[in-house]
């Protein structure tokens, strides 16, 4: 029970901090002081107090988009084990629900974007669905590989299964998996090298361009949802990449939080040292990730 409460608390409160850490890291690399770590929280609070502007072309779909997206991400968040603790909702086959919940959120994000009738948001939506579609098989390859290792199809088991021993036993495939997962993490959350959340040239954007017309609380919900998504996928990544379990519940939580903050720093570093890929290169990278994960699966299944 305590774990569930901690799980919910961490999942609900923690995600915006990741954005803050990434921002700080990037600022550090750029030699700036940067915004405070808690800037995302301030932003959210500010947004929830702001009024909204709605386009005349929009319908209820535009308002429903952020809500459904956030709800789906929240449910996904409940399916993920954090810090070697089983998830609040856990059942065999939940990995499929996990993947499809992202599908649902994507569906609503994109139709909300199309609802504005803006050509740029349409463009963003098209890119978003296309790239995610390519990322989806990779996610499944990775999850199946892990499932095969753990002989289970429950996310909680799958993701808490990897131990240092597995790394020794199947180091190569674990490495491939981690690589693939990292690419997915960046791609799904629209980070560099796939997308630049800070850019202001609409033609090159993916996720940000879809939410151009959202304002006020809706935009707050979107920002929060994006942070949550980063957190969820980050948690998956951390679980696989850092298979350390102390046995002590609180120590595990601490390790997890440190690890995910480290991940945020890593992302920040990546964003600082890499440039955005050209749009035509993105599918190639994604397909590359699919091949990595498929290769990992072959190594394990063989």
């Amino acid at each position, binding site marked *: 029970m305590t774990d569930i409460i901690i799980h919910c608390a961490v999942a609900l409160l923690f995600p915006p901090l990741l954005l803050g850490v990434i921002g700080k890291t990037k600022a550090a690399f750029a030699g700036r002081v940067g915004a405070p770590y808690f800037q995302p929280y301030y932003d959210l609070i500010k947004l929830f107090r702001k*009024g*909204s*502007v*709605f*386009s*005349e*072309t929009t*319908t209820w*779909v535009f*308002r*429903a988009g952020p*809500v*459904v997206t956030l*709800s*789906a991400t*929240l*449910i996904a968040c*409940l399916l993920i084990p954090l810090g070697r603790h089983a998830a609040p*909702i856990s*059942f*065999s*086959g939940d990995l*499929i*629900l996990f993947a*499809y919940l992202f*599908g*649902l959120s*994507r*569906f609503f994000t*994109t*139709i909300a974007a*199309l*609802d*504005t*009738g*803006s*050509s740029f*948001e*349409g463009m963003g*939506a*098209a890119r978003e*669905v*296309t790239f*995610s*579609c*390519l*990322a*989806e*098989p990779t996610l*499944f390859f990775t999850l*199946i590989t892990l*499932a*095969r290792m753990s002989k*289970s*199809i429950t996310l909680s088991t799958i993701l808490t299964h990897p131990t240092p021993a597995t790394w020794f036993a199947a180091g190569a495939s674990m490495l491939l998996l981690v690589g693939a997962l990292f690419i997915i993490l960046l791609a799904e959350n629209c980070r560099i090298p796939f997308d630049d959340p800070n850019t202001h040239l*609409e033609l090159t954007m993916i996720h940000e361009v879809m939410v*151009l017309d959202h304002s*006020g*609380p*809706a935009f707050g919900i979107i920002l929060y949802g994006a942070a949550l998504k980063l957190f969820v996928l980050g948690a998956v990544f951390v679980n696989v990449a850092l298979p350390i379990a102390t046995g002590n519940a609180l120590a595990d939580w601490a390790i997890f939080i440190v690890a995910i903050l480290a991940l945020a720093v890593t992302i920040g570093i990546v964003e600082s040292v890499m440039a955005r890929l050209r749009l035509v290169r993105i599918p190639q990278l994604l397909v590359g990730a699919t091949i990595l994960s498929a290769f990992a699966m072959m190594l394990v299944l063989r």
Partner: protein
Amino acid sequence: MPTCNHILPRYERKGRCEAFVFFSVDPTICLLAAATLMAFSGVPGLVMNRPVWGQRIAAVFVVAASIVGEFAVISLLGGSRGATFQIDWPLPFGQALMSVDLLSTIFLLPLFLVCGCVSVYSIAYWPAREQTSAGKLTLFLGFFAAAMVMVVLARHGVLFLIAWEVMALSAYFLLTAEQQSSEVQRVGTIYLIATHTGTMALFAMFSLLRGAIGTFQFPASHSLSQAVPVASVIIITALIGFGGKAGLMPLHFWLPGAHANAPSHVSAMMSGLMLKMGVYGILRTMSFFDALPVWLGWLILLLGTWSAINGIALAAGQRDLKRLLACSSIENVGIIFIGIGLAVVGLQLHAPYLIVCGLFGAFIHIINHGLFKSLLFLGSGVLIHAAGTREIDRMGGLARRMPITSPLFLIGSLAICGLPPLNGFVGELFLYVGAITDGIIAPLPLAALVAPVLALVGGLAVITFVKIYGIIFLGAPRSVAAAHGHEATRAMTAPMVLLALGCLVAGLAPVLLVRLVTPAVAFYGNLAAPEIALVTDQVPLVPLTFANCLLIILVLVIGAAYLLRLRRLPRSLGATWGCGYPEPTARMQYTGTSFSEMVVNLLGAIVAPNRRKPILVTAIPPADARFHYTVTETVLDRILTPLFQGVGLAFSYLRRVQHGQLHIYVLYIFATLCVLMAWTH
């Protein structure tokens, strides 16, 4: 119609389980009565000279038949066993039998529901007041529905063939309702040729079966040894004959055109129901054998995968709303076949998860696809009425003008993408669980590959349906007609509401779906209840329901909070931000073509888009430039059409033997004499 004359009083009861019988009427009799009612539904309209009333009477007939039929199905599911009817047929094929079993229920359940909905819908969609072909259409719609019931009832090769062909021909007459259009003619001809070719394969199949067992009556389940020398041939011909009807690649070529050009309610029946008859045929044929070769399972799996990926890839690149839905039918049939393939592989390798989950996945998807594809096709009919076109790119902004159709279509779209919390997810969940579980526990790694494939298909489906929902309903109208679109009458929306409710209920309470399907799975897989329970217990239906409900609650709570918040804060309306363009117009919006351009590019290897690029000139003001692409239907465009032309050319050379010169004709006679003389010596 053959159905009505055939029922002779002589029939035998094969026993029934009284405990579960809801009411005393035999299911088979109910189904026959329903078929008869449907077959004759169009007749009053022909006889009366008030076509409008004829159509209404037909709808009453069909709805009544549907209710009777659904009762029969439910009583079957409840455990009662239908009687077997025997026809003393004066034809040289032996006595014909008709009966139902639990496999039939999977197909009858959506059949009656959709038929009832369609017949009500047609009153407003194809009104006899405006359409002269309405009488004909109503008549054949009745034949079509009744023939499908008979296909499921028939237990005799020739009876089956008759029902099958009546079904196929009725579909032809239905889909050529707008026969004045040359495109309709073309696709009608392709359809007719495809279906007839398939029927010829079935001719061979049933003959071979007759040769193997000595009677045209269907053998009992699992009674036929796989060691019969012609077993493989029987299965292959069945795959050709039935697979063609089901739209399995590479025999799908007739499907997109036919479904796109038929009246929408006909498309709904063809796509939601007729394709499933092909699936039924294959399932029935396979049930005859005691064992099936493993290669068959892999073959079906491969064909299913191919259909799923290629079908949805084709769909993604379409500009025509109904053609898109038709291509997505190919995808869904592919998913059904993936399930069947998993089950067949599992049967031979004794992998219980593959068997049970494969069958569950396939059967649930059969029902689901019947619901949501019919919903979408009926919705497309509303759209065509409203916007006067099938071109996605000429619609837009219809959600504002169609407050009922728009959410219904959204439900259909979400369901067909397999997204929770709708019914599409349930079927796919079973397939995933089956494939992954046996992929990781049992040594069947290849089966696990199904999961990424399904994921890819799901991702492409999201692209496709975001595209049609977004481009059609959202944004600003792209044409004058779309700007003046109107909501449909209640006769059209009510059936859609019913179907959408079906999707919702089945999605939120997947246990219900599983309950409906379990008897058929047990029957078909020859499995005992514990065996099934062992597997289904692993499928997270209760937690899924919980998660679904939680999702809904979350949406409601967050939504309510958001709306409350919104009410307190200042709101203003404005134009969509045009990114600096001073006067964005509706024509500057992303179109369906541009939306899917990227994915079509990526899938170029499969769909081979035929691009027409604009010529960019620097002159000022710049001239008109257009860009568009069409995806290639490889089998039809690259293989069959050239093949036909080649054969036609070869034939025109051969035809020179008929040159009109009499004296050479005499020589032919003489030559024939000589050949016959020489033959024996």
